[in-house]
């Protein structure tokens, strides 16, 4: 797998960049730290075990599968660690550890390495692993546990309850049991590890945008679409709109999962289409589907659309004239023949 063969050299000017995969992945890990700290406070020390198992299994799975496939090692680029971390953030804290490990193995071996490794996965590995675990252990994933800070005090270890997204519906609006918006913003509700604390995720997301690791288009367009549709669907109920935005996995999805380089479009207009599409699907699943939450499915579906979005929004070079189709094909054939 020589990198040289993969690069298409265009006419100058060329822009050099000091970005490396390792550097970018390190930035993502740094950006995920606040949410990790928040989740330890909210869900207790078991969080650390879930994160550790997910990350270690992911790195180990990457190492072993690369070895089995006789390909060069790629664990040094930290992408496997990021996948493990993101997967852990998408699981409830009371998930049995062998199931967490199974999720990491599915993410790395099945979704990533079987399709060729980093840069070749057709959907986000961590998200697909989450969906697999959701269908494999439906009871585990819906019964999220939390050790509430202000509601129940420290004398109780944990409480299981419906995730916030189960407490809002189009017919009855916001349930009276639903946590307050401040609780939602801080994250002291039930849910998956990393998705509950909106503020911690926003800090991490801002860091990524400032470091220019991710472009703000996808998160802004994604969350904006969900907010807009929610406020229309709930007939101008501002609380319900904020609740939809802060609840579930929308913020972690918009900042950390939907912005994955491999599975999101590279063109600007493509990013808009991708993010608005994801927002639309999320709202359709949330409001009309039988599942309470649709972020993971919407991102996966848009991941699959990404190649088509990219080919539709490919930019035209300056002074580009549409060539006659047959001539172009002939030329390409001639070139290939000359090469071989």
């Amino acid at each position, binding site marked *: *797998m020589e990198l040289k*063969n*993969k690069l298409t050299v265009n006419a100058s000017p060329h822009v050099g960049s000091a970005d490396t995969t390792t550097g970018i992945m390190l930035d993502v890990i740094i950006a995920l730290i606040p949410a990790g700290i928040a989740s330890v406070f909210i869900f207790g020390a078991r969080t650390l075990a879930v994160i550790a198992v997910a990350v270690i299994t992911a790195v180990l799975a990457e190492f072993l599968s690369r070895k089995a496939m006789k390909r060069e090692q790629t664990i040094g680029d930290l992408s496997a660690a990021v996948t493990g971390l993101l997967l852990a953030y998408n699981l409830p804290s009371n998930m*049995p550890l*062998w199931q967490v490990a*199974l999720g990491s193995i599915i993410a790395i071996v*099945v979704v990533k390495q079987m399709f*060729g490794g980093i*840069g*070749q996965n*057709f959907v986000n590995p961590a998200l697909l692993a989450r969906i*697999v675990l959701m*269908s*494999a*252990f*439906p009871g585990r994933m819906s019964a999220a546990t939390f050790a509430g800070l202000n509601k129940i005090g420290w004398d109780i270890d944990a409480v299981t309850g419906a995730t916030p997204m189960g407490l809002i519906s189009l017919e009855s609006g916001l349930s009276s049991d639903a946590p307050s918006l401040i609780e939602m913003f801080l994250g002291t509700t039930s849910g998956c590890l990393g998705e509950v604390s909106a503020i911690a995720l926003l800090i991490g997301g801002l860091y990524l945008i400032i470091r220019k690791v991710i472009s703000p288009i996808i998160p802004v367009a994604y969350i904006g679409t969900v907010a807009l549709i929610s406020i229309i669907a709930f007939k101008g109920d501002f609380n319900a709109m904020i609740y939809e935005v802060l609840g579930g996995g929308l913020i972690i999805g918009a900042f950390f999962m939907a912005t994955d380089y491999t599975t999101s479009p590279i063109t600007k207009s493509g990013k808009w289409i991708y993010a608005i599409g994801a927002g639309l699907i999320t709202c359709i699943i949330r409001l009309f589907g039988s599942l309470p939450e649709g972020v993971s499915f919407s991102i996966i579906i848009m991941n699959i659309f*990404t*190649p*088509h979005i*990219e*080919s539709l929004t490919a930019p035209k070079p300056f002074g580009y004239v549409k060539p006659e189709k047959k001539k172009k094909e002939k030329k390409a054939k001639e070139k290939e023949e000359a090469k*071989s």
Partner: protein
Amino acid sequence: MADKKSLGKEFSKGLIAENPVLRLVLGTCPTLAISTSVENSIGMGIAASFVLVCSNIVISALRKVIPSKVRIPAFVVIIAAFVSIVQMFVKAFAPALDASLGIYLPLIVVNCIILGRAEAFASKNPVLASTIDGIGMGVGFTFAISLMASIREFLGAGNLSLKVLGFGTNLTDIFNLGETDVLTAIGLEPILIFILAPGGFFCYGLLMACANKLAEMKGKPKAELKSCDSCPLATSCAIKIEGKECAK
């Protein structure tokens, strides 16, 4: 030409090298739908094998009588006749199996393995060779579908229904577990996705890879994609540069 081939080879090719499910990728619909329990899979395998052997015999015997322009309708009529016999037989003697196979029992009529073997083998070869081919393919189908079912049932439900036409036992009964399943008993829990459709596809893919590897070790050609033409991701996928076939 087929007379010179040893009949043993006609039988054994159906097991791995030309396994109808894992190598020829025929009969995928019943394979995916039925392989959620070993008991049903064996029942399905036996029913389909019976139809396959009988239709192979009749079609091969009539191969010089059937005009080639109407051969497909003729094959279907012959196959449908045998499926009706099997259906009545199962309804009468194994009503439980009939209930669990449901629509997939009459659907044996359109099972690609049977029509495929009729078209590719029985209509061109003598009766004995066609019979052996049918038995080999039937055993291969039963083996593949039961193997897949045992993986899916064990991981997805924590049980193995080791029954043939109502006789036999369950894995949970062997260990006297009552209502709980084997996986829960050892501290794990069933991975539900394996008895759902995605788990079926996943299991199928892995088994196909294994069969491919086995056949390759025996010196048979690997079944693989020859070009990227049919792939929707071809424009944005970098694998084509790596693949030798596609780059040319």
